[in-house]
């Protein structure tokens, strides 16, 4: 009786050990310094962005003209990172700015990913004239310098969050489209696609159920890099006064406002600049780490999953 209990306990602990070994093995490729470092920064950004209304000490738009241009008061003062020319709290504006960066980055990646993957999959799967037409469209859009196209769209449509997202999506879908199209071209002649076709599956079903899932790992890598570039472009457009309306605090517009005071009140430009720097660094590190794991080319060459 005792023996059987011990045996059972041993079996359970053995099972547990196997499970934890499996988990460790599954997690091992993910536990690289790049993924961990980048992940922590991105996680922090997400937490700050989501909880801005609760953790921000002040309303980001409340002005206190008599407290304008106060320097940082590091030791738990009223304005830890100082105030801007209108007496608004820099720290609160940075927290709310994180929301905007996050919303823009996520929306741009999702929309451009959906558009790019859909067009790329259609283009590669059908090939022929469809492929030719879609790729010509890609070449035409690709011919515009990215920031210039975004500036033109913003100048035409006017300021606004939706317009800004549209302007940033305008060229970012192309990277997804190109990569997806290349992969779809090779997938269309694979056995599992032929099998699905011979079983009577329609084109839509083949694309959605069999082609697209195989395109997602690459798209995920493109997405992380695209997220970083979207944040930089948003900052650039806001810096130029073409981003979201001025009453919405963004890091780019804070940087733009701060440049007027850069020699006299350095804190106005420094902190949003650092936020942009670390966010882009974090997302790029994460993207780099994900590429090491998911990029099939790196897998073949022996690096990555290993």
């Amino acid at each position: 009786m005792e023996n059987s209990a011990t045996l059972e306990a041993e079996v359970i602990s053995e099972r547990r050990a196997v499970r934890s070994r499996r988990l460790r093995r599954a997690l091992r490729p993910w536990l690289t310094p790049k993924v961990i470092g980048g992940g922590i920064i991105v996680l922090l950004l997400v937490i700050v962005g989501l909880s801005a209304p609760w953790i921000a000490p002040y309303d980001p738009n409340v002005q206190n003209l008599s407290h304008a241009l106060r320097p940082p008061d590091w030791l738990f003062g009223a304005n830890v990172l100082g105030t801007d020319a209108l007496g608004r709290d820099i720290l609160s504006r940075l927290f709310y700015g994180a929301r905007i960066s996050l919303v823009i980055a996520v929306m741009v990646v999702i929309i451009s990913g959906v558009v790019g993957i859909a067009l790329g999959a259609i283009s590669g799967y059908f090939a022929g004239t469809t492929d030719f037409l879609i790729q010509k469209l890609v070449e035409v859009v690709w011919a515009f310098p990215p920031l210039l196209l975004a500036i033109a769209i913003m100048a035409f449509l006017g300021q606004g969050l939706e317009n800004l997202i549209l302007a940033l999506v305008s060229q970012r879908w192309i990277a997804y489209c190109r990569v997806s199209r290349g992969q779809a071209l090779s997938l269309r002649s694979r056995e599992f696609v032929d099998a699905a076709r011979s079983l009577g599956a329609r084109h839509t079903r083949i694309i959605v159920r069999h082609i697209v899932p195989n395109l997602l790992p690459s798209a995920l890598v493109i997405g992380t890099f695209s997220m970083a570039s979207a944040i930089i472009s948003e900052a650039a457009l806001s810096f130029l006064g073409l981003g979201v309306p001025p009453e919405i605090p963004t890091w780019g517009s804070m940087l733009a406002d701060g440049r007027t005071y850069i020699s006299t009140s350095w804190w106005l430009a420094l902190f949003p600049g650092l936020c942009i720097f670390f966010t882009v660094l974090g997302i790029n590190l994460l993207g780099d780490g994900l590429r090491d794991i998911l990029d099939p080319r790196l897998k073949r060459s022996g690096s990555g999953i290993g």
Partner: protein
Amino acid sequence: MRIPELSHRRMCAIAAAVLVIGATIWPARAQFRTQLVVGVTDNINSYNPIADSAAFMASVWCQVYGCLITYDYEAAAYKGMLVERWEVADPTTWIFHLRRDLKSHDGHPLTAEDVVFSIDRMKNDKQSAKRAQVAPIKCVKAIDQNTVRMTTNGPTADLLEYLTDHVLVMQKRLLETYGDREADRNHPYGFGPYKLKELAIGNRVVLVKNPEWKDFRPGTPDTVIYRLMREPEQRVTALLNGEIQIAQFVPPHLASRIEGSARHRIVTSGSIEMMFLAMSPKREPWNKKELRQAVAYAIDREAIIKTVLQGQGRVLHGPLSRGQYAYDANLEPKYSYDPEKARALVKQAGFPSGVDVELFTPVGRYINDKQVSEAMVAMLRAVGIRAALKTPEWPTLWTDVQKGRVPFYYMGRGLMISGGPAISQYFETDESPRIGYSNPAVDDLLRKSRATFDQAEYIKAINRALSLILDDAPAHFLWQHNILYGVSNDIKFTPQPDHRVFGTSVQMNSK
């Protein structure tokens, strides 16, 4: 250490080389030319001298083509530039006698026909932004080679203010030979003190002295370069690095940087430019007078001047302030900061739960313009006017304002000497679409002010019109800036209240 001895031949060769180099350098030193570089903020947007009515380009073209009339702020009197003298033959007829000693940059004499042709072009050119300046002129005729007769639509006492700095003289011969656009682009030969050497749109204007001009003071710069620098930091840094000698519109918070330099100084000037918030009564929701008045009560001008402008401004209770010709100290200040009253007026206007509007502001055109507008947005929101701030780039905003497409905006109007023409331009029916305000009583009073040549009558009529305008509030008058210039100690420069920097108003100190 032994110094090698030089042979006689070698010494001769060195002496000859020194002589040759010296001879080459000496004439260059003798011909040393002075150059003034000014960092400016306004548009440089067209080769057409009449396509922009904004102050800066008007001053450039005035120096190149020559203006009929300018204003001498020291003497507080109008002064002929291309005109020797003028007389008022009767209340609707003015006779101008042109200077006979002037020749164009390509060697042709100034003629009355040139003046007639130029005024016709200002009226008829599709790109003309100077129609308002020549609007009172019914017809203009050349009496002889050097005399021009202008007939006005009605008696126009302040005709000279309409003409000042804006009515240029272009050569009829060139415009007829080459056509407007080609003549503007490749043959910009005027009669002014400077020749146009280069105009790079959106970047710089380069002027060089016209050697034929007789009125230069000693030390007037040979070359004047205006460089577009919208960023205040850029202007101040360029000044401190010696790249420019005058930095226009230095924001108050940067003055200490210039004051800290031993080679530079801050020069301050009052301004005759009124800063205002325009509210077009033609457009919803600004057709409600109570809402416009609410805006006037909602803005705390003193607080903005004290904080955002760091004290460098004077509150305006009308478009004019003490020292301006038509200013009347008896004009009652109508609006003071009263958010409670503003809130009540918003409700009275039919917006019990507030109203959404868009406020357009330039960025970098006026001193701390965006910050000022953001401060006003917060004050408006506090009384229920939920203003969303719009910051289009300046050339776009300016074009839209001139075409009457912007219902609510922050802007300035310069060159208000007597004030009459500017008040007419913005508040007289159909004078310009910039605000779109119309009040027959105001129109009558403004017509009456123009018709009288009596100073007291003129001031009375203008101020009666102003009290009606203040009550209707198609615009809320905010302040006049104190304009700060960063100036190099290498030059003598006294700024003018109209912000124009003429090459002729600067003297370079001898080196």
